[in-house]
Structures are given as structure tokens and as C-alpha cells.
């Protein structure tokens, strides 16, 4: 389901009540609040991590793509270049004459393009999967306005068919799964490798820090206000948040505290180990959140759905906060009324960090097209932004906001070989992924139906294994 905007105008109001987009984060490291050894709330041995990632890359073949246009993800473009992958890593990126390891698969990329694997910082795949039946609706623990104790990974259904579409049509290799936005504090997110597994742990991005989902504005106040509970206003939103942060600070200082799952997460945020992803539309509200974060002592990593970021691009740049945005969604709710398609380009032009996100199981299949539209809208108003820079919005900048930019998000030697070979310019509507590698493993190949993932849910159903 379209988590934030709902789909039909008709179904929208009802959908919003149930399915609110959100954000959170995850990772392989614990962000245990305190290293205090005063309590032993788990049976894990020292150094063991709860719900640790069990992801391991499948065996890969050294591969070279030559004669190809390269967008490196950090804003550079190389024409007629080569990329060499070996041992699951990027070995080299350069001109046409790069040496290849013995036995490497050679791919002629003439007329084609490569980019880093696309990264979506805002997805609800797995927690609001397809089919969108009530039994699968696990994205919002909408029973309390703050649920910092919940972890999105415990809702992830690894058989969501959406993962396969995100790869085959969108070139998605990593994605952050967030709790929804019914709550002011929705819980921890989890960052996944887009590689099917029997378990959620098997998809967890090793070493990725956790994220923490927060939500401003209409959703929390509507969900709880409609039940006669606090918050029912924006000032109520802030009051609940501030008290929660104050309590978290007190928890950290109290050496005799009783172990509290939620406060452990909040402490992780205050220590900078857990990254805040804050659903927030309006410019004025983002400015209030920035001050709240200063008061509480944490940092906002990214504002998501930030349709009004263009109004405070300077403030966001100064505070080093990314804006994760759609190209052109608007009008589905009051706080999305001032959205403009030039938002991303205006932010980039002001030197602020831009990420193109989806919050949608269809949009995630076309983040490249969303970037292309946002780029074109910017150019039409006279802003000068390169194609390669627009690709950065879905790769390096996204990786940075997830805290995984040292591992993936650009084509640099030593990084994970997460890469897409496009059958044309990825900024054209006519182009699609031809091959997708994760850690150097070919996991989608348009030319080979056996490299087309089919989830358990689809197996044996009409259309299983079809082109999608």
C-alpha cells in the first residue's frame, strides 16, 4: 500500500488513519545505551549482539564491465570506463584499459550505464508488504504515541514480493525499513541488503547502525487526538517528545535504573549511535524539531517527506541535515500542500543534502526516474545540476544518511560491489536495470530468467517468475 498518501483520493482519508508512513533504522551493531554493567537484562554473553545479522554474501565471480558510462555515486561521471569487481568488492574503477583478474567475466557495456546499487532510505517493504492484507499490516505499533521500544525488524516479512520488484525494476541493493508514522517515536528501523533470505536476520546489512523513526505533524496528533489522547495538537506533539527526551536523559544518569527497552534506544540516540530519521513535512515544524534536538542533545540525520525543505534550505545546510524527498508528491494531506517539484533541486543548489526516497512499493521501483524528474524541474528553473549529481541523491547521500557510506553507496575500490548495469541512461524513462550485483553477486539479470527472484508467496501462483 502507499503508506503515506494512500492511493485513490477516495480511499485516502481512511487509509491515512491506518497506514502512516514512518521511519526508523537498524543495523548489526548494538546501540546499547550504556556500557554500564550494572544490569544483565539479557542472557547474551558480553559482546554478543541481539538479533545479529546473519547475512553473508553468496559466492561471486570476478566481473569486469567495460566501455560503459559510469556514474560513481559521488558526483563523478566517467565515459567509456570500466569497473572491476572481485571478491565481492569493487577492485577498480577507471578507463577502458583496466586489468581484470584471471577468469573474470567480461561484460561489454557499450551504450549502457553503471551506477552504484540504488539505496532507498524510506521503505516499508516487509512491514507493510504485498498483499496488503490486515494480517500483514505490521508497520505501526499505534497503541502509544511513543514506542521507542519496538524494532521494525521484528515485523519484517522476508517473503514480501516487493523486494524482487525493487531489485528488478529499481536496482535497489540496500534499503531502510522504517516503522510507520502513527507515533511521534515509532521505533527502531532496520537497514537491509536487498537479498532474499529465510529470515529477517539474513537480510540485515552487517555493520549498519540502527536508525530511529520519529514523526511530526498531522499523523500522531490525528491518531491519538481522535482517541481523546495526548497529543491532539502540534504543541502536544512537542510536549510529549520533550518529556520523553528528558526522561531518557534522566535514565542515563540514574545508575540504578531498571532496564527499559525503549530508553535503551533513546539513549543510543543521545549517544549518537542511533540515527534519527524524522518524518516531517512543514518547514516551520522542521525548524522546531531542530531546536528540540538541541535541547535534548541529539542530532537529526534526515527529515523524511520533507516537502517544504526548500523554504529552509539554508537552515538545513547549516545544521547538516539531509532531506529525503519525493520528486513531486503533493496535495494528499494538508501538510503536503506546499510541495513543489523543484524541492530537491533547490536544496542541492543551496548546498544541502538531498536524498530521493520512496515510502512506496511502486515508487521504490523507479527512484532513478524520480531523480530524473526532480533534476529536470530544477534545470527548467535555471539551476545547474549534473546528471551525476542527481545519481548521488539515490546512492551516496542515501548511504550517508544510513551510516553505511564507508561500505556502499559509491563505486570506489574496497567498497561492497553493489552495482547496477542499466540498459541505457538511468535518467531516461526508457531505461531499466539489466544486471544487479550485491556484494559482487549477480542477483538479477534481465537476460536470464533464472536470475529473477520469486518469493515463497508467489511460488506456484499465477504469474510466478514472469517479467514484472
Amino acid at each position: 500500500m502507499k503508506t503515506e498518501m494512500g492511493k485513490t483520493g477516495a480511499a485516502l482519508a481512511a487509509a491515512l488513519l491506518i497506514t502512516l508512513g514512518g521511519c526508523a533504522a537498524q543495523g548489526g551493531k548494538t546501540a546499547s545505551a550504556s556500557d554500564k554493567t550494572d544490569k544483565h537484562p539479557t542472557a547474551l554473553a558480553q559482546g554478543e549482539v541481539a538479533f545479529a545479522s546473519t547475512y553473508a554474501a553468496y559466492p561471486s565471480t570476478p566481473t569486469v564491465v567495460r566501455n560503459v558510462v559510469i556514474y560513481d555515486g559521488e558526483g563523478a561521471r566517467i565515459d567509456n570506463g570500466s569497473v572491476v569487481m572481485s571478491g565481492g568488492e569493487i577492485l577498480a574503477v577507471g578507463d577502458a584499459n583496466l586489468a581484470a583478474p584471471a577468469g573474470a567475466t567480461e561484460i561489454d557495456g557499450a551504450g549502457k550505464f553503471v551506477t552504484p546499487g540504488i539505496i532507498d532510505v524510506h521503505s516499508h517493504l516487509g512491514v507493510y508488504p504485498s498483499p496488503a492484507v490486515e494480517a500483514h499490516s505490521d508497520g505501526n505499533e499505534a497503541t502509544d504515541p511513543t514506542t521507542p521500544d519496538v524494532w521494525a525488524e521484528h515485523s519484517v516479512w522476508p517473503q514480501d514480493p516487493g523486494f524482487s520488484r525493487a531489485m528488478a525494476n529499481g536496482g535497489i541493493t540496500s534499503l531502510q525499513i522504517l516503522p510507520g508514522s502513527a507515533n511521534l517515536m515509532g521505533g527502531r528501523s532496520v537497514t537491509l541488503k536487498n537479498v532474499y533470505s529465510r529470515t529477517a536476520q539474513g537480510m540485515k546489512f552487517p555493520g549498519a547502525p540502527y536508525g530511529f523513526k520519529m514523526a511530526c505533524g498531522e499523523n500522531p496528533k490525528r491518531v491519538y487526538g481522535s482517541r481523546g489522547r495526548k497529543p491532539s495538537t502540534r504543541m502536544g506533539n512537542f510536549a510529549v517528545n520533550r518529556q520523553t527526551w528528558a526522561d531518557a536523559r534522566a535514565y542515563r544518569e540514574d545508575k540504578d535504573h531498571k532496564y527499559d527497552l525503549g530508553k535503551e534506544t533513546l539513549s543510543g540516540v543521545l549517544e549518537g549511535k542511533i540515527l534519527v530519521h524524522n518524518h516531517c513535512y512543514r518547514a516551520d515544524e522542521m525548524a522546531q524539531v531542530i531546536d528540540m534536538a538541541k535541547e535534548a542533545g541529539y542530532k537529526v540525520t534526515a527529515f523524511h517527506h520533507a516537502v517544504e525543505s526548500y523554504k529552509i534550505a539554508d537552515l538545513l545546510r547549516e545544521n547538516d541535515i539531509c532531506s529525503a524527498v519525493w520528486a513531486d508528491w503533493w496535495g494528499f494531506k494538508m501538510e503536503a500542500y506546499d510541495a513543489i517539484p523543484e524541492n530537491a533541486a533547490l536544496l542541492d543548489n543551496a548546498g544541502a543534502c538531498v536524498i530521493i526516497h520512496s515510502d512506496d512499493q511502486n515508487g521504490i521501483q523507479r527512484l532513478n526516474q524520480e531523480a530524473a524528474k526532480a533534476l529536470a524541474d530544477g534545470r527548467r528553473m535555471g539551476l545547474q545540476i549534473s546528471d551525476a549529481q542527481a545519481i548521488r541523491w539515490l546512492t551516496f547521500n542515501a548511504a550517508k544518511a544510513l551510516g553505511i557510506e564507508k561500505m556502499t553507496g559509491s563505486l570506489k575500490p574496497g567498497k561492497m560491489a553493489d552495482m547496477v548495469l542499466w540498459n541505457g541512461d538511468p535518467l531516461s524513462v526508457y531505461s531499466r536495470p539489466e544486471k544487479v550485483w550485491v556484494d559482487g553477486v549477480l542477483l538479477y539479470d534481465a537476460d536470464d530468467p533464472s536470475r529473477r527472484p520469486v518469493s515463497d508467496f508467489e511460488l506456484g501462483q499465477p504469474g510466478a517468475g514472469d517479467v514484472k
Partner: protein
Amino acid sequence: MSGPLNILRTTLLAGLAIATTPLDAQTYAITGAKLVTGDGSAPVENGTVVIQNGKVLAAGSNVAVPTGAERIDAGGKYVTPGIFAGFSRVGLVEVDAVSGTNDTRANSSPFNASIDVSPAINPTDSAFAVSRAAGVTRAVVSPATATSIFAGQGALVDLGEDYDAVSVPRAFQFVEMGEAGAREAGGSRAAAHALFRNALREARDFGSRANVRGGGAAQSEGQSLSETSPDLRMLESNADRPQDVLLTRFDAAALVPVLEGRQRLLVHVESANDILRTLDLKKEFANLRLVLVGASEGWRVADRIAQSGVPVIASALNDLPGSFEMLAATQSNIGRMRAAGVKVAIGMIDDEDAHQLRYAPQYAGNLVGLQKVPGATGLSWDAAFAAISGDVADIMGVGERYGHLKAGAAGDVVLWSGDPLELSSAPERVWIDGVEQSLDNRQVRLRERYRTPQEGALPKAYER
């Protein structure tokens, strides 16, 4: 664009278009165009289109330019008919989640089939201006269901900047017959079919009493009723209205033109089985003029849809099993249906149907892109553009008047900066009914106000 007499007449005669002749229309001759006519044919290089009295006077290669026409040199750029949004709710919604501005459905109304969206369509909605700036000039506007499988009657509109948006009021009735229909009917598809049959029976009875012609069901001569045909008692006509009527008189009356085939019936179904069961309705109600809407699994029964001659307005890019009625969804659906001979256009079904009509070219472009994907079935560029222009008009029965650049059709014309299906392109000039349109809207104003975010000598509120 229409006088009181016309309004009165169309009130009486459902389905007739209001004549549109803008008073301020100039004569334009756009020359040197890469001319797309909207019928699926290849673009004409160095083409000309002449717009006069609000209509296309001529379009093609060797077209004479009338004296006095304002000449516009397209310089080789694309000139096309405006986009015709195949299924939408534009003009019914300003902000979806603000209920006072959302007229798509009526949860507490006693009426269903009789609901006519025409008076609710508000051409000053922001989405009109935003869509217009993106080259959308016409749209199919449908109500949504609330308390019945019947949503009511939809209209065809133009997106011009005036208060006369409705081109064809009551152009169709919209009904849900899949999962949503089952829900509205009380909980099952069987109930939806019972409700449908009962409603048409009541309409026929109502029509008979009112001496409306053609109210009969399909018991054509020589056709024996098969075992799947309904009990005859379900079809019989009574002189008086029976006691067990479920429809208001108003709703029954509204379904008479559906029963008689004078008004199209747009049926939303997604699954292959629901599609076939919908096509079966023609066996009982022979005059129905069906149009399938959605049809995500249409490709599985494409031959049978083609055989029925029923056209389809489909979602372009559905490829997920969002529900159990679209398990086999694939982006190749439209291409495969078209290859099987189905007339198919692109619509916004369960999509951002009020605000994002501007996605139509992107959706069409994606189907063109599928041609390069092994195993997928896409559309040629020419067919893809037709699927968002001429084919929509043809399916809605207005192909002579809209959606095409041909003599006599409305002067809905767009001059594009580049390939209209490409993401980097945008309209440079737009005409609707021969009147050049402003491309301004509040998104443009906001953009300009915040070109630099900092406040200047005065607050932003003073910049406009």
C-alpha cells in the same frame, strides 16, 4: 462555453455533450512540428496543425495556413494532442485528507447510481492548474463507491481555465465488481453480482413503467437460456414497483441508460476471473456497453477480452500482488492485451487519481521502455502515446471530438520541449479548446518565492 439552454438540454438528455465554442479563440497555425495525431500512427515530420474556432481545422503535412492565423514555428519540436487522463478524480479533490475538499465519495448519502459528479467538479482546484501545466487537457472523472457497488455517473472534462469544465456530463456509470465491490455489496462477490442484477432489473422495471425503450434483458431470439442464465422471475417486469425494491427511484432511473446501452458502464475488476464474470453480464444484459477498468490480470484472458470487443482502461505499471485479485500483475499487461487485439488505454486506478494526472506520459514511457526488456511486452512509442490520448477518447466514445489532432476535434494541443514521454520534457505551450492556457500555478509561485530561501528587505509574505 455553454448557455443555459444547453445545460437544460443536457440535463434532459443524458450523455450528450455540451457544445464548446470559446469566444476568444484565435486562429493558430503551428508549423514545423514533429506532429503526433494521437491515433497510434508515427509522428509526421515538419507537420502543421491549424486551430480555428476552438477546433482543429487541419493537421498533417501539406496543410494550408489560413490568412490571419497566428503562426507558431515549432522548430521541429513535438506537437501532440493534449493528454487525456484515462481514469481520474481530478477536480473532485483539493486535499485528499481534508474531507470538506474531497467530493469523491458520499459515505452517508442515500443515493448511489444517481450521483452525478458534474456539479462537484471544481475547475479552480489546484490540480487542474498543475495538470494543465503538464499537458493534460482532458480527463475521465469518476466518482468512487461508498455505500453500494454503484459509484454514480462520471464525466469527461477539459482542464481549461474557466468555469465550464464538463465536456460530457454523465458519460458513464462506474461500478465496482471485484474485491471492493464485494465489500460494498455486503461481503462477497456473489452478493455484488446479485446486487448488480437486481439493480438492473429494477431499472428495467422502472424503465418499463416510465415507457422508456429498450429496458429488456438479453433474451434474444433463438438463444436458449443456458443453465447459467438467471431464473426468469429475476427478469420479469411488473406493472407496479415491487415491494422489495432496494434502489431509490432516482437510482433506478439512473441505471436505465446503462441497461439500454446509451451510457457506458465502467466496471472495475482486476482478477482474470472477475474480468470473465463481468464479460458474462453481456449474456444477460445484451445492451451493456462495458469498459473494463483496472484489469491487472487482463493478460491472462486477453483473447477472451479481445473477442468480446470490450475495451480496457488499465493501470500501466501494476506489477505487485497488492491484493489477491492481482496476483499475476505485470507491467507487460497492457502490451500483452494490446498484442491480443484488445483496445486498451492508460488510467489512474487506485493511484494518485486526483493530483498526479501528470504521471500519464511517464507511465506510457515506461511501457515503451519495456520493449528493451527480454520477455516483456511493451508498447511502441506511437501506441504508448495513443494510450494516453486518442485511445482514451475512442474508448469513451468521443474519438471524433477529443484526443486526436484531426479536423473537427477540439483544439487541445501541446507543444513540448522534447519527447513528451521523456522525464526531462515539459510542455512549452498548451491550448485547450483552441484557447492558449497559462502554465502558472501555485507551485510555480512557491518556487519563485523561495528561489533563494532567505528573507530579503521584507518577509517572504511580501514577495509575489
